[in-house]
């Protein structure tokens, strides 16, 4: 049920579609360092994320999980290998607005209202005023911030700002959502509430998600599969098939389910077993 599988294994339980949401093949990323001492952030990474699948990347600090996400988003280019998003190169996917993205910092524009922030990607891509407004209303309702549409970001709490960032990422109905520790800076209670909200939103939008996190319970609660990475050089140490049911059927009860704890244990073991530097930098909150 929750057995770690080999790195790069095809997704199980997810129907194989013609074009996977994300196809990472033999990717490496080497950062040139000072005095010719280069740093290998990623090495031989193979990963397939199916359409509509929720995949978490977890691992110790410096394992390259954020680097991998940035490569998928084409915010950075791999030094070897290739990345396809919905069957086309990552760069084309970015230029075609194929994905939505959310970072650890909400990254809202402080001089724009909540509504204008959510409309930002739409206005950049030439969506008309009326359509923008309608979509922003939908998004505000989705993240429960309708009453705060005309507030400015600094008038909101950290959790609310992150919800605005998620609404902004979803504004263009992307089939792929890239999230880089979006709940990393939030307190535990806000974090769990937003996790449940994200599960509900994903069920509604049917988007595939690549989710970078430090937290084992968070990865297990949210994901169909958890990709465990090891550091120096960053590579995939194992993939845990969580198999707790499709995202729509997940509720807060799941956090007390035996299968949930089993999956948490499996991820923890994969983290400790697959790495030279066991569990350093991994928080089990």
């Amino acid at each position: 049920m929750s057995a770690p599988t080999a790195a790069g294994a095809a997704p199980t339980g997810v129907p194989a579609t013609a074009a996977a949401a994300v196809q990472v093949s033999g990717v490496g990323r080497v950062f040139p360092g000072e005095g010719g001492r280069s740093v290998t952030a990623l090495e031989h990474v193979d990963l397939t994320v199916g359409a509509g699948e929720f995949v978490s990347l977890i691992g110790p600090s410096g394992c390259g999980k954020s680097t991998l996400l940035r490569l998928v988003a084409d915010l950075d280019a791999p030094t070897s290998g290739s990345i396809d998003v919905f069957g086309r190169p990552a760069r084309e996917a970015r230029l075609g607005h194929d994905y939505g993205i959310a970072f650890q910092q909400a990254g809202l524009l402080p001089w724009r209202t909540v509504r204008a922030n959510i409309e930002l990607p739409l206005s950049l891509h030439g969506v008309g005023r009326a359509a923008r407004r309608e979509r922003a209303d939908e998004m505000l309702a989705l993240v429960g911030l309708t009453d705060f549409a005309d507030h400015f970001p600094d008038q909101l709490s950290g959790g609310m700002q992150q919800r605005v960032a998620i609404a902004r990422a979803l504004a263009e109905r992307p089939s792929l959502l890239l999230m880089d520790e979006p709940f990393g800076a939030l307190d535990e209670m806000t974090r769990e509430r937003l996790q449940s909200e994200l599960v509900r939103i994903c069920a509604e939008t049917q988007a595939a998600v690549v989710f970078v996190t430090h937290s084992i319970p968070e990865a297990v609660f949210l994901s169909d599969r958890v990709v465990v990475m090891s550091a120096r050089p960053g590579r995939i140490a194992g993939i845990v098939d969580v198999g707790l049911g499709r995202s729509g059927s997940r509720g807060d009860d799941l956090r007390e389910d035996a299968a949930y704890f089993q999956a948490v244990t499996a991820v923890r073991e994969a983290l400790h077993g697959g790495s030279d530097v066991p569990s350093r930098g991994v928080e089990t909150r």
Partner: protein
Amino acid sequence: MSAAAPAPAAAPARARRAAAAWGHRAAPVILLAALVAAWQAVVTLGDVPPFLLPSPAAIAGEFAEFLPTIASAALVTGTNALVGLVIGAVVAIAAAILASAVRAVDLLLDPVVAGLAVVPVVALAPVLYTMYGASVETGRQIVVAVAVGVPVFVNTLRGLRQVRPVHRDLMRAYAATPRQATRAVTIPTALPFVFTGLRLASSLAVISAIVAEYFGGPRSGIGSFITTAAAGSNYARAWAYVLGGVLVGLLFYGATSAVERWGTRGVRRA
């Protein structure tokens, strides 16, 4: 706010707030009036000679008597300051934009700006008078433009470099064109810094315009009349012209503050 304090009834609270606001505004006026009264008292009771310190009443008398001259002198000095401020600011902002975009320009301009910052610009006035002729205002306007350019350039360049990495990533992720990214992120980020530079520059513009007049040129502005009046032992009149210069300075400061409030409305920082 006073969330912890027991909530007072609404009406008295509003009255108290209004009173507080009034007091806030009235306090500096009362202080100024008190200082002027004390000044008058010291001069009258202490029999202070006018060359040491003329009385406020004498200055006010001269101010009223020479009002047309003071007004026209203020107009000349104000025009010089305004022309210099606009030219200096436009050139400085353009240079800052260029320096933020092209690394080579930045490397070229950096020592030049550092050099300009330490040059006593008003001391250039006599040189400029001989270059452009002593009967035109051009030299003074150039002095103002150069003096103003440094703070505007430094602040604008700093503002243009404040774009947060997360915003840069966001613009790239949205495949925004350079023009879109500039409008959506770079300009709004830089604006508060530009306005800070302009506010500093506005006072500097008036000061440089007046001081440049001390070094010669046409006898037309506030600075020239201050030197003339002082040389002719008309101390109260000299002070009346100083008062005129203060008013021009206040006008410039108020105007740039208003432009700043207008230009950064809706801009809030976390």
